[in-house]
């Protein structure tokens, strides 16, 4: 049973436009959410996180939105740049318990 789902395996966006990556989760006990970016042959790199007490967190071009009632979060990248092309993983955990559950990833291609 996949607790963190990323239903879009891939996404293509024109440079300069907005990229929106979506993530759904099933476990209502999750209260800490993260996004990681991964380039080939490298480990995942932490991008941005959000606690369940917030519904939005922004860091430069990256914004994460959390809708707890829908058990849905999204990552917005604006403006998208070719260097953003990578696989993006959504992840979730419970605050009292450090095990992090990852989604299967979405491969983003930003076209120059």
């Amino acid at each position, binding site marked *: 049973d996949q607790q*963190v789902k990323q239903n879009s395996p891939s996404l293509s966006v024109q440079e300069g436009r907005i990229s929106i990556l979506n993530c759904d989760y099933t476990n209502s006990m999750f209260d*800490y959410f*993260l996004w*990681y970016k991964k380039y080939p*042959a*490298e*480990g*995942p*790199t*932490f991008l941005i*996180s959000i*606690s369940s007490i917030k519904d939005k967190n922004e860091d430069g071009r990256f914004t994460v939105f959390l809708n707890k009632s829908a058990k849905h979060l999204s990552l917005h990248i604006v403006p998208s740049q070719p260097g953003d092309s990578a696989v993006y*993983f959504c*992840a979730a*955990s419970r*605050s*009292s*318990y*450090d*095990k*992090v*559950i*990852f*989604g*299967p*990833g979405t491969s983003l291609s930003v076209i120059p």
Partner: protein
Amino acid sequence: GAGVSQTPSNKVTEKGKYVELRCDPISGHTALYWYRQSLGQGPEFLIYFQGTGAADDSGLPNDRFFAVRPEGSVSTLKIQRTERGDSAVYLCASSLGNNQPQHFGDGTRLSIL
């Protein structure tokens, strides 16, 4: 650098052999995690250490897998009697603790022939 270091970066061995994978966490990080990633999937949790003790080993697939962290810093993931299905990228991560982001190494690509 000051990141998580994993060695070797690649390991090829025959079915039935024993392998050890090493992880050097970021200095000062008390929490250490092992994950396994297969092609097209996200990292799958294996085991989590807080200090020297395994706080959660529920992700280890069977008793052929074992991990240690004897001094609360470097950790070794050990796999006995390897099988072809063990082939994957094994990732290590460390963090400062609860609700802190995990920082990953580049992984060890394990291939069982």
